[in-house]
C-alpha cells in the first residue's frame, strides 16, 4: 500500500515513478513492435503501411462519426476487459466471456422484446439487469466447480463458450422462442425501442454504453484499491494461502468473484444488443469475448489501463474498415496487429527487470 501511494508523488520517490512508467512501457513497446511487423506484411501486399495506418487513424478519430464508431467498438471491449481484470486480480482466468456475453445478450434481448408498460429508463434497466444475470448464471457452474470442487475454471469456461453460442443459435433459429421469421440470416425479432440505449450525439452511433463503461472503469479502480472487498479479492488472487491465513474465505471469494466477472460479460452482451445491434444474431460476437483478454492484459490488468487499451483496440476495429475501403488492405489486418501485440506483450513480459522491493519503509 505504501508504495502505491508513493507512485503518485512524482519525483519524490523515484522507485515509484520507475514502476509506474515500466507498467506502461511494456504494452506500448509491444504495440509498436506489432505495428512494425504488421507494417512489413502490409508492405508485402504492395501498400504503404503509413498510408494504411493513417487510414485507420482517420477511420477511428477523423470526425464525430468515426469517433462514434470507435466508442461503439470500445464499449464491449472495455466492459469485458474490466471483468477480465477483476477475474485476474481475484485469481481467476475466465476464458468464458464469449459464452457469458451470448447468454447476457439473449437475456437482455428477451426482456427487451417484452412490451412492458414501464418508462423507457426502467425497461433499459430491467434489460441490462437481465443481461448481467444471464452472464452470471453462465458463470455459475465453473464458479462452483472452481471454488468448491477445485476444478480449474479454464477448460470448463472454454467448453461453456461453445455450449452458449450454440444455445443462442438455437434461440434465434426457433420462431417459438426469439427468432424472426422470414429472414435469410438467423436473428431474433428487433428489440422494442423503449429498451434502446439513447444515442449521445445525433448523427453518430455513439450510445450511452460508453459512459456506463468508462464509469465502471473508475468504479472498479476505486473498489479494487480502496474497499475491503477489493483488498480481499486481490489478496486471494495474489496469495490464497496467505489470504486463508488472514481469515479470508477463499472459496466464497473465488465463487463470488467469478459470478461478478460473468455479470460483466453478460453486461457486454446486453449493452451490445440494447445500444448497437438491437437484435440478436447467430454468431454476432465474432470472438469479442476472447478479445477482452487482450484488452485486460495490454491494459496492465488495471482498470484505468483497460480504459486506454480498450479505446486503442476499439479505434483499430473502427478504423480497419476505412483502411479496407481506401487502401485495400483487409480489415483482418487488425486481428493480425492485435495478435502480434499480445504475443509480443507476453514475450517481452519476462524481460521485465526485477526491481528490488524495499522490505521496510526506508528512513526519510
Amino acid at each position, binding site marked *: 500500500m505504501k508504495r502505491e501511494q508513493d507512485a503518485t508523488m512524482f519525483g519524490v520517490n523515484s522507485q515509484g515513478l520507475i514502476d509506474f512508467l515500466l507498467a506502461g512501457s511494456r504494452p506500448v513497446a509491444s504495440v509498436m513492435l506489432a505495428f512494425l511487423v504488421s507494417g512489413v506484411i502490409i508492405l508485402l501486399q504492395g501498400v504503404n503501411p503509413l498510408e494504411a495506418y493513417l487510414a485507420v487513424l482517420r477511420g477511428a478519430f477523423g470526425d464525430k462519426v468515426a469517433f462514434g464508431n470507435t466508442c461503439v467498438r470500445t464499449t464491449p471491449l472495455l466492459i469485458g476487459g474490466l471483468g477480465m481484470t477483476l477475474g485476474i486480480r481475484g485469481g481467476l482466468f475466465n476464458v468464458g466471456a464469449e459464452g457469458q456475453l451470448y447468454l447476457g445478450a439473449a437475456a437482455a434481448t428477451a426482456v427487451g422484446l417484452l412490451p412492458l408498460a414501464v418508462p423507457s429508463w426502467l425497461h433499459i434497466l430491467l434489460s441490462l439487469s437481465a443481461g448481467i444475470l444471464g452472464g452470471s448464471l453462465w458463470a455459475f457452474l465453473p464458479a462452483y466447480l472452481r471454488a468448491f470442487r477445485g476444478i480449474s475454471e479454464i477448460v470448463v469456461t472454454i467448453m461453456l463458450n461453445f455450449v452458449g453460442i*450454440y444455445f443462442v443459435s438455437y434461440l434465434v433459429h426457433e420462431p417459438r422462442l426469439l427468432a424472426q421469421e422470414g429472414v435469410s440470416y438467423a436473428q431474433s425479432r428487433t428489440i422494442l425501442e423503449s429498451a434502446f440505449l439513447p444515442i449521445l450525439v445525433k448523427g453518430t452511433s455513439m450510445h450511452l454504453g460508453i459512459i456506463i463503461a468508462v464509469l465502471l472503469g473508475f468504479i472498479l479502480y476505486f473498489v479494487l484499491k480502496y474497499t475491503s472487498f477489493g483488498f480481499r479479492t486481490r489478496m486471494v488472487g495474489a496469495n490464497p494461502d496467505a489470504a486463508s491465513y488472514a481469515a479470508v474465505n477463499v472459496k466464497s471469494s473465488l465463487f463470488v468473484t467469478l459470478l461478478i466477472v460473468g455479470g460483466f460479460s453478460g453486461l457486454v452482451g446486453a449493452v451490445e444488443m440494447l445500444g448497437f445491434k438491437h437484435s440478436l444474431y447467430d454468431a454476432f460476437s465474432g470472438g469479442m469475448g*476472447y478479445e477482452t*483478454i487482450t484488452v485486460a492484459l495490454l491494459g496492465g490488468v488495471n482498470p484505468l489501463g483497460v480504459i486506454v487499451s480498450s479505446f486503442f483496440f476499439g479505434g483499430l476495429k473502427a478504423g480497419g474498415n476505412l483502411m479496407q475501403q481506401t487502401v485495400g488492405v483487409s480489415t*483482418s489486418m487488425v*486481428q493480425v496487429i*492485435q*495478435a502480434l501485440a499480445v*504475443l509480443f506483450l507476453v514475450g517481452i513480459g519476462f524481460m521485465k527487470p526485477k526491481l528490488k522491493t524495499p522490505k521496510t519503509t526506508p528512513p526519510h
Partner: protein
Amino acid sequence: MEDMFPQINTFLQATIRMSIPLILTGIGTLYTERCGIINIGVEGNMLIGAFAGVAGAMVTGNIYIAVLCAIITGGLLSLIFAFLTVSRRADQMVAGFGVNLLATGITITLMPYLNANRTRAVLFPVVDTGFLKDIPILGPLLFDQSIAIWLAIILTLISTWILYKTSWGLSLRAVGENSKAVATAGLSVIKLRYAGILLGGIFGGLGGAALSLNNLGFFVQNMTQSRGFIVLAALVVGKWNPVYFAVVCLFFGAADALQLRAQAFGSVLPYQLYLMLPYLLTIVALAGLVGKTKAPKEYAKPYDPEQA
C-alpha cells in the same frame, strides 16, 4: 433394407471424414498435453495448416508437397507458442489465444491471393483396395477412403507405442506429471516440452490439411470452425489415452455428421444440440461425474528451472 444401406453408408463415411482431422490433430496434441501444456493454439495450427495445404497444392499441384507445406507452417506456428510458453514462461491460454488470432488474421488477409484462379486443389489420393471395398458397410467405410484414414490409424498405433513403450515417451509423460523429477534425472524439461509442442503443431498442420484437402480442395474463412477446441475436448473425454481418444473422435465425428444431416433434412432434435455435445460431455467428464479424469498433474503450469 435395400434403401437403408446407402443411407447408413453415407452417414458412416461422413463420420469418418469428420473425425479424421480431429484424430490426426489430436495425436500430436496428445504429446503436447502429456508434457503438461495446454495449447488452445491448436485451432490456429489447424487453420494455418488447412490454408498452407491448399496454397501448396495450388502452387505445386503435388499433394505430398502440399501436406509438407501444411506440416511446416503448423510446426512453425507452434514454435512461436513454444518459445513464449516454455522459454518465456508466458501464460499458455494467452499465448494460445494470440496464436489463434494470428492464424485467423493472416489466413483471411492472404485469402484473396489463394482463391485468385478459382480452381480446386489436388486431393488426398484414394487408396485402391480392390475387392475389399465391395464388402457391405465395412467396405465403403474403411476401404474406399483416402490415404488419410490409414495415416490416422497407423499414427494412433505408433503414438500409443511411443508414449507407453519407449523411454522417450516415459520421459515425456513424466514431464507432465512431475517436471522437477525429470530435471533431477538429468533430462531437459525444456527440450521435451519443445518437442511435445512441436509435434502438436506438426500434426495440427496435418489435421488442417486433412480438413481442406481430404475431399474439398479449397479453403474458406475460419474453416476449422473450432475443431481445435473439439480436439482438446476429445482429449479430456478420452482421458489423454490415444486409443480412447480416437474412439471419442469417431463419436464426435458422428455427432458432426448428424448435425449436418439435421441441418439439411431437419430432425426432431435441434441440430445445435449435436454441435454442443462434445463440449457438454467434456464438462461432465471434468466435473468428475463419470469416473475420474486423469489430467497431467502439471497441466497448464509453466516450468521454471530456477525453482527446480
